[in-house]
């Protein structure tokens, strides 16, 4: 267990989508409704909130702990407090990313977004199918506009921070 950082809860609360952590009463309805918690013991939304409240920053802002969530938002609907752990997850991921902690699969999508303006590109097989359907190529993206936006938000630097 890492050394507690008392301000961590407020750091999360002041990160976009992180506000809900202040409302958590540790009832555990999030965990009991979470489809991932049913199959992965390590993923426990209630405990994740507890760790944030206790200030266990380096345990939370890690390579794997924030990345089990499916963002299915079941917990948002179940939480009696508006604690929004599924939203708070985005806040802690955003914080983890500023420290270069991004899973490879997410990084691949981010790179594709920057290069192609889309997270998934159309492969050969789908192109052949599209042609047979008369759908034409995949819809064209204005990549220049996408890159302009992503440079302005420093997204390009965030992604390049990864070791």
């Amino acid at each position, binding site marked *: 267990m890492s050394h507690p950082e008392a301000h961590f809860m407020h750091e999360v609360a002041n990160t976009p989508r992180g506000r809900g952590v202040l409302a958590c009463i540790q009832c555990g309805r999030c965990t009991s409704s979470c489809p991932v918690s049913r199959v*992965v013991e390590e993923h426990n939304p209630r405990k994740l909130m507890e760790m944030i409240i206790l200030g266990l920053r380096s345990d939370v802002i890690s390579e794997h702990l924030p990345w089990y969530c499916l963002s299915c938002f*079941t917990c948002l609907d179940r939480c009696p407090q508006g604690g929004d752990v599924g939203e708070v997850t985005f806040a802690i991921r955003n914080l983890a990313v500023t420290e270069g902690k991004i899973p490879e699969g997410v990084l691949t999508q981010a790179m594709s977004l920057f290069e192609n303006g889309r997270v998934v590109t159309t492969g050969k097989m789908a192109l052949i199918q599209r042609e047979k359907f008369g759908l034409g190529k995949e819809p064209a993206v204005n990549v220049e*506009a*996408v890159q*302009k*936006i992503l440079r302005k938000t420093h997204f390009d630097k965030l992604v390049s921070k990864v070791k």
Partner: protein
Amino acid sequence: MPMKYAFFAGCLVPAREPQYENSVQKIAPEFDIELVKMEGANCCAPFSIQSLDYTSWLALAARNLCIAENMGLKIVTLCNDCYESLLMTNTILKENKETRDKVNEILADVNLEFKGKTDVKIFTDVLYEDVGLEKVKNAIKRPLNGLRVAVQPGCHLTKPKRLHFGQQMGALALDELVEATGATSIPYERKEACCGGPLRGINDEVALSVAKQKLDSMKAAGVDSIVTVCPFCYLELDMGQIEIRRHLKEEYDLPVVSFAELLRIAMGMNLEDWEMRTHRIPITKILDIMEAR
């Protein structure tokens, strides 16, 4: 006069489920729906991108919203994730001036401004709310009576509730649409649960375990097919069955079909044999089931 919509195809449907897009394009004119191309639209910025940076998400999603605003049209999406990203961004930017100003400052660089003048719908909403159930029922020429369907609404069709309050009927609407084709929507445990798809490519093992839970409960309910809206659900449940067979030694053999394809079959429109075999579990099975009854 056709009903016009700004058509947001997204990334995943054109790239991984073109048969869904094809069926949407084929049935739209039958309901007087005109899908107008959105010039240069970009990725919706799904949860993976939202995980990286809040402002980048909002700005990218807002760019798409601006394109639709400039067309003077509402957006229609095919994917639950595109739907969530665009709908949530539209809601945040309409409600929060500070965030809106910040995003507009970024958008100024690409000569756009978010004004809050569009709305976001998903294709099944358009059928349910704008076309109406009666018209859908009247278009059925080959009722799928006896087909036992597990409806997989997917998460962001209805969740979080606060985003959808008073806006649409979500899963319930989808059940009614499915039943309009003559098929029966069979209740099953954990129907509203996630398919696991969002973790595909990030944590495949977890994604597959979550999918297995769903497939197990569908199988236990005795369905013979699965109907999806979202391409994540489609991929996870169709391709997922092949992977589960290989890694977890469980067999389901349930054809997975998008609602657009199901409707197209029920409307008596001809689907090519090769088209039905683009699915990992060929949906020719659905026709076989119908013939056997």
